[in-house]
């Protein structure tokens, strides 16, 4: 969060300086790598604490919109528990960039998500006991994203985005002794790199 708070005003300032410059619209596939902070509210927010997350998306422009898919990884801390929970989230997205000829390129995205939540195997983090539970709770949801790309070149942009969405999972977490929790709201803030590997052509 601290890095994000630091980067945001800096990017806004730089964008204001350069925002008037015209650039050439980019085409071709777009890759986005981002780090950020993900937190939850709603029912799921009662047991899962926020954590640093990472995300990868691949997109392809089709006329004025972008179609794509990707994955998101996060290891949630738990309220009142020592263990952590792992979440892998896949998404399909439809995006719409504005001002495609400007240095500052805002965009919106709608995403259909599929996530898998499970107790994280602590063996990998120095724990001695093998996690015998093989519990996975999965389900679908949606997410809305607003963000902006700060164009560095034909090949790359800095990407800043904010997203929020809702989801439900099944089975609920009662089997894990966490109550009948099967839905939640997920929020995240990301800073990353948007990359046109074919130089935007």
């Amino acid at each position, binding site marked *: 969060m601290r890095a994000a708070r*630091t980067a945001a005003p800096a990017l806004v300032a730089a964008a204001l300086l350069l925002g008037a410059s015209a650039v050439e619209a980019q085409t071709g596939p777009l890759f986005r790598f981002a780090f950020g902070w993900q937190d939850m509210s709603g029912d799921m927010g009662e047991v899962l604490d926020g954590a640093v997350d990472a995300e990868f998306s691949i997109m392809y422009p089709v006329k004025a919109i972008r179609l794509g898919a990707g994955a998101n990884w996060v290891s949630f801390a738990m309220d009142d528990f020592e263990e952590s929970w792992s979440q892998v989230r896949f998404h399909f997205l439809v995006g719409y960039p504005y001002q495609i000829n400007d240095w500052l390129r805002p965009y919106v995205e709608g995403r259909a998500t599929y996530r898998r939540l499970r107790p994280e195997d602590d063996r990998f983090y120095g724990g001695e006991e093998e996690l015998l539970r093989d519990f996975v709770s999965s389900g679908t949801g949606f997410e809305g994203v607003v963000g902006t790309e700060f164009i560095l*070149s034909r090949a790359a942009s800095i990407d800043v985005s904010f997203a929020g969405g809702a989801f439900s999972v099944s089975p609920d977490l009662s089997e894990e002794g966490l109550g009948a929790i099967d839905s939640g709201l997920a929020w995240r803030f990301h800073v990353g790199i948007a990359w046109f590997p074919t130089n935007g052509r």
Partner: protein
Amino acid sequence: MGLRGSIIALTVPLTLGFALRASAQEGPSAGPSVVTAEARASEGIPLVRGGPGLVASPGSREGPDDPVPVPSPAAVNPALLPGWSFVVGLPSPRPVRPVGRSDAPGTAGNGSDDGATAGEPPVQEEVWTDVWGQEKNFGLAAVEAYLGNFLPWVFNEVVPGRAALKISQISPRSWLNNLEHGWEWDDNAFQVNHFAHPFQGNIYYNAARSNGYGYWGSFLFATAGSFHWECCGETHFMSVNDWYNTAIGGAAVGEMLYRTSSMVLDNTATGSERAWREIGAFLMNPTRGFTRLVTGNASRVYANPEHPNDRIPNRLENQISFGVRKATSERRAGEITVDDGGEAHSFVDLQLVFGSLFDLERQKPFDFFTLATQVNLRQEKGLGKLQIRGNLWHKDLSLTDNSVSKLILVQDFDYENTEAFEFGGQGASLMYLKRTDRSERTSFVWNAAATWMIMGGVNSEFAILADVEGIRERLREYDFGTGLGGRVGFQFLRDGYRWIDGSYRIQHLYTLNGSNFNGRDSNHIVQMLRLRAVFPLGYRRFGAGAEYELFLRDSFFESEQFGKIEQRVPRWQIFFTWNPTRNVGN
């Protein structure tokens, strides 16, 4: 955010912003003056793609009348500063150089747009490409390498048997945990560490190799791609043996597959022949096939590389054998002898000699390489052998009418995985090679090499006690080690046929992880003797032969209880051979 953080946060991007603007005003600051693609289009100047294999030449199927507009690095919006090109993947203007062939129409190659007016020959578009017509594209190479990790992670995540291992539960937490913990050794099976990982490294390697990079640049990609997987592709601790095998072995396997797939490709072919060639090359080298599909080279008709070694070398020997093999194994510790038995089984092997060490004109890695494989039929361990030797550097020592001698630096890739023993790893050797022609039909070749096994593995009785931190998946049956050794070889050639081929190798391996548990040293001396004779059978593409191999392992354990263990594995095989593309080898 404190005052200091605010100042930094505002100053850095603003400084960057001014740099961007200043650069934008200056425009392209280095390199030859080049007509941009946009400028050409606006002026109605035809675009002709440059570089070997892409420039229209007399008689080629692609000419100025059929221009292919391809953007060049110089066609990038001048508002983009050259200094950022390294970071964001844009080819810098500076390395762009004229590479057009002088015999091609419109290939002025002077990088000037002077006189580029209507009615004059079209100006050569200056785009650097490799000999296969591929521009250097860091972005696409990096993305392909990334997908080479992303897709295996998806496999681990969604396939039930793999998901149960929980190694796909990656997150920024696991990445930080792995980076903080550092390197460990793993206990994977021999074929996983010494074959599967090099094959995975080949994907990273060819992501770069097929995008305009050479051997060394692609090797760096394999190194980085492997590191990325080790730190961030799974929750296991980073494995140093995986990193070595994937990076170094990936370069050997990758370059071998790049060269062999080059023999299948034909840029001038059309129709179904072209389709089958592209499919064949795709199956041999999927990463390269993917690149050719994405870039359109798979369907574009243009010239093949000019130098034979970039496609089909002047000298090529391809020998396929089918036969029966019998191996036995015996181990001895002091007065105790254990007969491990052995049984006969059939096999198929492929031996490929690409190019000739004696014809090397260029300092280009793997302009000469040998490949030896053996597939065991009806055996648990199917792939019994994969051996690659490729030149990295060479120097002529002497040259007379009937003899030549050279000094050659060779990359060694060894993988032998049989029921009786396991031996393999990544190494390099400095080899002295001499060939003497006794007559027009008869030649002798001999060589002597000093070898260094950078990291190798050999079966060991006490490797199960290895210190392997983190998750134990199995008990490892082989040691990891490093060491020096030597190799000598002899060949008798008649009419280009390799009648007799013999070699002897001795290799020391000092155990780095395995039997050296609790601080006790262990060492292995491995010796391998091989004698092979092949005789033509009338119709000269066919032959019959016999081979004798002897594998000896002397393992020395510091522990008094273990002492010394010897293993002796003699192997006999008889076979028929077929040489579909036999030429003079070596």
